């Protein structure tokens, strides 16, 4: 019998100035927050459509009306990101795949493939990101300690995380590589992959405003 599977999402509430700050400039903080909200909504839609029995949102901030039904919400705890990951994973038991909110181009099939990897084929899974980090990590039997000491957001994060899994006796299956939204160029590239998404629509609004900015900037501001 296939054990009960969990899909865990690490997310920040889309509050201006607290999310996607690397998009500014060219974005204003409000734009970045709107884009983050769109990406989070797209992500949660896909998670809703995948085959996981349990869906958990580990949230930094307050939930809003953007939260769909069917998600358990737990508050993130800890100072560093590795600590927050460890805390989020400590509420999970059984096979679990964890993602973030920077890859709205995921599909239910991609998530199901990752869930199957940890439920059926391997003791762990890791989805590498194009920048050297990772967009998803999975474990058959969660070991929160695998995040300790792994620096986040470096070009070697993926290699370090894979090594940490192996040091804990887990052998990850490598999932598809995805681009995660870090910079404005990343956002354009990801939006092009999912033209009918909220992410793409929100980005179009931002691009439109940026294109009109030269004329509006001629208006004197006191």
């Amino acid at each position: 019998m296939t054990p009960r599977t969990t899909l865990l999402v690490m997310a920040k509430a889309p509050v201006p100035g607290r999310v996607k700050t690397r998009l500014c400039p060219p974005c204003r903080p409000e734009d970045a927050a709107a884009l983050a909200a769109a990406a989070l909504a797209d992500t949660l839609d896909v998670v809703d459509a995948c085959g996981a029995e349990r869906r958990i949102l580990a949230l930094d901030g307050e939930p809003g009306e953007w939260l769909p039904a069917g998600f358990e919400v737990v508050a993130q705890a800890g100072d560093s990101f590795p600590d927050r990951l460890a805390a989020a994973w400590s509420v999970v038991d059984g096979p679990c795949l964890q993602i973030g909110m920077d890859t709205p181009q995921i599909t239910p099939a991609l998530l199901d493939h990752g869930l199957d990897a940890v439920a059926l084929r391997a003791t762990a899974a890791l989805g590498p990101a194009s920048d050297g980090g990772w967009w998803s990590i999975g474990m058959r039997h969660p070991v929160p300690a695998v995040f300790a000491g792994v620096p986040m957001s470096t070009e070697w994060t993926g290699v370090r995380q894979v090594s940490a899994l192996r040091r804990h006796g887990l052998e990850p299956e490598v999932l598809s590589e995805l681009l995660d939204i870090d910079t404005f160029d990343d956002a354009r590239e990801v939006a092009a992959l999912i033209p009918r998404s909220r992410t793409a629509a929100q980005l179009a609004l931002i691009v439109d405003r940026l294109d009109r900015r030269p004329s509006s900037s001629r208006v004197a501001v006191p």
Partner: protein
Amino acid sequence: MTRPGLDTLGRRVAEKRDAALARPAHDERTAALLGLALGVTFTVCFVTGLYSHLLQQPPTWIAVPPSPAGLYRVTQGLHVATGIASIPLLLAKLWSVYPRLFSWPPFRDLGQLVERLALVVLVAGSLFMLFSGLANVERWYPWRFFFPAGHYWAAWITIGALVVHIGAKLPVVRRVLTRGAPETGAAAEPGTLTRRGFLGATATATGLLTLFTVGQTVSPLRRFVLFAPRRPDIGPQGLPVNATAGEAGVLDAATSEEYRLRITGVVDDLVLTRADLEAMDRTEAVLPIACVEGWSASARWGGVPVGSLLVAAGVERGSAVTVDVRSLERNGLYGQSVLAGDQVWADDTLLALTLDGEELHVDHGYPCRLIAGNRPGVLQTKWVGELAVR
């Protein structure tokens, strides 16, 4: 035997000796010319040998630079070539001077005693150096001592005796080789060698021996290689190997699914598969494999710079670290080598995954091997299983 009998024998030996020494092949001028040639080959051989020793047993206060990458190929090629060329030169020299062994009394004063004792050391040392070196090239070890140590220490003894010998003979050399010096010996008797004939024969033998062996280093002369144990283009992927994976006892470990490269020491340990290495940013470098035995061949290697792996493990780029490169081969003398100083961070110090664009053959070190510039082949560690950083 009675005393008068001994005297008669002594007189007859002295006559024979003096007659021989009067011939051009045995006279001082011939001996001096051969001595000069040997002085050159021995000096080059000694200096290049010291360099090779320095690379293999680096003192802590020096880190040999990784460039020029082909330097060791040149120095070690010279070492073996001058050693081999010394063989006919030494035999000719010994034949030229052997009548002098029969001088009586054996010495006239303390100085001459020292000089003649040094000669025993010089001749024995030279024969030992050339024989042991040649046997090592042929990978024949008819002795119980550790070749590098024996060859190294005997080299110091021999070169010391050579310095004494040159000091003793320099006046003779100057006298007989000064321009316009009077001919000392007689003209060659009919049926015996002239000096030109003898030296010409020696030079020809030396030249041909060099031509038939030096192709193991100098690729355009490759097709003339007759006596060298290896042609540098014969082996898996067109490159020779000294020890196969089977001989090293690593075939199973090197081809196992369980293979992992570990980066350990003062870092956050990395545990990587060959697939992980393949997924990293790779570079290519054209570097020679230059064996201490004299053969060398250049190849195009592709792999991950050791520096990148250290940075991935958390080492600050350019910091002063030493890396022990450990092979899966546990028992061999060369199962480990050391990277120090600039060798660690050079762009072309690689863990190689490919050879001339193909996946590395297991006899060349699959899953990965060290390849770096200006480094003896025995230190280009194969089947690397661990990089220990300190």
